[in-house]
């Protein structure tokens, strides 16, 4: 892990000088701002029972499915396409360090982008003069959920990037994998046919991996260790598969 800081600072620097980062950041902030404005319009029209933060985080899946592949699709695929992975892996760095640095850089960017949306709530509080809008419980829970689930989502994106040398293919794989985890899980948990006898174990797995219910728990302030373990173990597994995938490509090059 000696080279991890060097690799991480290199990756972050590369992200910061890349125009794609700024395009993605602008689109993300513009889109989230739009959602936030819409929520405010609804709230100013009629009194609502839930905090605006709760509603705000309900749409987390859209940036997760689109932004994460955009941030991660380049990381390993591009190195392989350009051949720079060869120069990188012939220095004393290990594949683990490389994958972890790529993952951490993308994760740092993802979390930074999300945390910049705290500004929306701050502006709301400042101009409405009403402290209730900055309801710290759901807000904290919501951002915690983003931070914890982001680990797994970004790791999936990194894995998608490790299986191919084509950025767009990596992006599509990442997008589909994230959509099936987040939206597919949601669709399956709503379907009643999974309730039948033999399929019940599958149903319990689907329920365990139901991202939307995790989000609801987090924003309600319930931080269940099972959820945290789900995301952490998913992250570790995805990263291990990414490392193996990079190494397998060398073995069978």
């Amino acid at each position, binding site marked *: 892990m000696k080279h991890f800081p*060097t690799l991480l600072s290199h990756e972050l620097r*590369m992200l910061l000088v890349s125009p794609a980062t700024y395009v993605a950041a602008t689109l993300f902030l513009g889109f989230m701002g739009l959602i936030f404005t819409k929520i405010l319009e609804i709230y100013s029209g009629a009194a609502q029972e839930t905090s605006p933060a709760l509603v705000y985080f309900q749409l987390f899946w859209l940036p997760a499915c689109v932004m994460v592949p955009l941030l991660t699709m380049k990381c390993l695929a591009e190195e392989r396409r350009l051949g*720079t992975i060869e*120069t990188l892996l*012939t220095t004393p760095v290990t594949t683990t360090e490389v994958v972890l640095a790529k993952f951490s850089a993308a994760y740092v960017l993802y979390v930074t982008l999300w945390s910049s949306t705290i500004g929306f709530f701050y502006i709301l509080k400042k101009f409405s003069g009403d402290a209730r809008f900055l309801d710290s419980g759901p807000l904290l829970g919501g951002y915690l959920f983003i931070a914890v689930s982001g680990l797994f989502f970004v790791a999936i994106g990194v894995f998608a990037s490790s299986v191919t040398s084509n950025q767009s293919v990596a992006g599509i794989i990442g997008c589909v994998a994230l959509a099936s985890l987040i939206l597919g899980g949601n669709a399956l948990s709503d379907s009643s046919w999974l309730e039948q006898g033999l399929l019940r174990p599958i149903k319990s797995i689907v329920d365990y991996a139901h991202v939307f219910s995790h989000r609801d728990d987090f924003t309600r302030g319930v931080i269940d260790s099972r959820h945290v373990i789900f995301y952490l173990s998913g992250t570790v597994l995805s990263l291990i598969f990414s490392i193996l995938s990079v190494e397998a490509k060398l073995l069978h*090059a």
Partner: protein
Amino acid sequence: MSEPPAAIEVSRLVKSYGGVMAVHDISFTVARGEIVGFLGPNGAGKSTTMRILTGYLPATSGSVLICGLPVATQPGEIKRRIGYMPENNPLPDDMRVSEYMYFRGRLKEIPRRKLGPRIDEVLEICDLKRVRHKIIGQLSKGYRQRVGIAEAILAEPPVIIMDEPTIGLDPHQILIVRDLIASLRGRMTVIISSHILPEIEMTCDRVLIINQGRVVAQGTPAHLRREIFGHSSYQLELAGDPATLTAALAAVDDSFHVSAVGEPDPAGFRRITVTTHREGELGESLLAALLARNFRVRSLSRDNPTLEDVFLAATRRSWDVVAPPPKETSPPADAQPGPNPDLSP
């Protein structure tokens, strides 16, 4: 204290890709401080061998020792001892030259304190000072190649492996690279692969020719000429009785024989090629013997096969005879040059 191990020791190296043998039982040794040229047609296994040497690719079987350390079990240590410039010289397009050097220097574990001066030094050696703040993606091919070379020598590793470092360079830049590589002689062990054969001949102490994954010839360029051709030949243009020529030749050296006789021109001169197994320069005594026997000699020249001829002959030989592995396990100095009349160019 025993003698330090050879810089590179490869024995019985095999690499197969899904059933296709890319490298087939290669063995060779490179002494410390030696500059070795790696030749072979496209697809011969040069790049694969180099990648195995760097520890980037695992070998299917066989062993590779770099400075006495096995590549297979100590890849981390090996990577500290090599500087590698891959084929096509991949570089990140969106970094500045100095940033890239700094990043690579840190990865290669050069202490921060020494890194700045070392980067200056390397950029100076490779004539890159003018472009140090330029973005690599905007550099011309020649500069990019030199960035790759600068990067390979950055950490002053004992072994440098360069896959076609002079490809795409203009003659002036080739000269710079040649001088650069020559300046490493004695300090670092260098393996370069190239298609530019005169280049290899001028820079390298020794040449390894591989084809179809096997070493087909190795040794100094002069040694290879002897081994591959097994003889020296002389071109003569003379007038006289060809029947007495054999006797005249035998007087100079027993192994002389006439290998080709041309048609006489109107003045009665014909082109004759004579060959001998003797290595030394026999031109003068040959001329004297011919004149003594009343031959009229218009010209005499010794054929000097270029490395190209050696390369073509060696690779052609290996296409013809794919069976016996060459005797590469013995050091080249011990290899016995033998007659090989079928291989005349």
